[in-house]
């Protein structure tokens, strides 16, 4: 089902950090929300999640830091049960074993609290929770920033495989256009709290229209620079 939001905005300390923004997201869409630090990407992501959930849509969220997703006083098992409960699943019915094996966290002790797990394992645990069900949308905010390159690549491949053929849409929030360009079919470019450009990925890579998109395209890749 197509997801639609309109007039999303945010003001902090009297300053508008997200100007009124409307989005339409098709089922199964793969969208990259890209921009520089402070451009409003995460703010739009949060506003989008809140609005869709208020509409009764199911949205899974992988925040930038696992600290935002995990209660330090609760065990990992508690978090998993909460995620199943939120999706209306019978406790223990999710494919925990398969997801943990795919994300290489099967050695983690679920009776422990988050801080007993490494940061990279915490992040992969949060990603596993997001993949339990079949939400309308998964929002991933810099999902691989806490991961080693080999694990990060494997995690993104797992996401691709998991979402392949499903109606779940995916929004990847990142400053790294090089990563987004490999993973999404459509890009949305943020600058100063505004969505300044959106187009198919190849169009933006070949013909960026705005200065914000041009800067991201020019700097998307280390090896492309004459060093």
């Amino acid at each position, binding site marked *: 089902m197509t997801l639609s939001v309109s007039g999303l905005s945010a003001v902090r300390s009297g300053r508008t950090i997200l100007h009124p923004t409307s989005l339409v997201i098709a089922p199964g869409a793969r969208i990259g929300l890209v921009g520089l630090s402070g451009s409003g990407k995460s703010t739009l992501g949060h506003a989008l999640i809140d609005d869709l959930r208020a509409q009764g849509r199911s949205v899974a969220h992988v925040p930038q830091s696992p600290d935002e997703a995990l209660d330090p006083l609760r065990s990992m098992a508690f978090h998993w049960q909460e995620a199943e409960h939120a999706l209306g699943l019978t406790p223990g019915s999710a494919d925990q074993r398969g997801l943990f094996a795919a994300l290489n966290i099967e050695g983690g002790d679920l009776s422990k609290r988050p801080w007993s797990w*490494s940061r990279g394992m915490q992040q992969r645990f949060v990603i596993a929770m997001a993949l339990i069900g079949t939400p309308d949308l998964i929002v991933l905010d810099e999902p691989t920033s806490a991961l*080693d390159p080999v694990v990060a690549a494997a995690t993104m491949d797992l996401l691709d495989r998991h979402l392949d053929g499903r109606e779940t849409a995916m929004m990847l929030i990142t400053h*790294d256009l090089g990563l987004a*360009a490999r993973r999404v079919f459509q890009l949305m470019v943020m600058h100063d709290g505004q969505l300044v450009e959106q187009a198919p990925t190849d169009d933006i890579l070949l013909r960026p229209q705005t200065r914000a998109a041009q800067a*991201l395209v020019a700097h998307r*890749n*280390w090896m492309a620079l004459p060093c």
Partner: protein
Amino acid sequence: MLRVNQVWVKRGAAVALQDISLSLEPGRTLAVVGESGAGKSTLIAAILGLLRPSHGEITWAGAPVRACRPALVMQEPRSAFNPVLSLRRSVMEPIVASGGTIPADRLCHLCDGLELPPDILDRRPTEVSIGQAQRVGILRALVASAPLVLFDEPLSALDAVTQKHTARLISDLQCEEGFAALIVTHDLGYAAAHGDEIAVLKSGRIEEIATPEQFVLTPKPGYCEQLRDAALALGALEAAA
């Protein structure tokens, strides 16, 4: 020249570094990559003399490394600074401690290059963004004109555009001043673009020391090849592929 010769480092009962040998000439850059826990930051601590090798030796120009007053960019930008001091005091501390002074125009030039606002040094670490704190950490390391600069994930808090600008500034300054740079990073694109050589660490051992061309085109089979493939899958090496 930095020379790390057959160094072993233990942390408790665990062996953190095993038989590490490498060298780094003035004006050159060695990028150190590898998974978390591979021993990258331990290597920096050993070079700085904060961890004593159980075997082997580490020297700069034949003397203990600390004698050359190496500079360090720490991994965690905010905790790298004293929270109750202004950033200016923290930046000046190593210079003042060694009885030196910094020409005002050098400080301004570096602030400009790092895209830091002029008044930032009068703020405390909690009053700046994490990306700004990371760049002030780089400023502190570069301003002292140390012959050896150790960078521990120096660009991790910066966006893609600022990363490239900052890396370019470091390289340009290195060309002018000739310091040796050892850069620990998870970012294989950064390592390949700015390293003269790349050392791949795994489980405390060096898997391979290669030029960027060797690393990208003909990595050693096994872990090094996995790393190269991961960089391609993540878009970090797209243009070279």
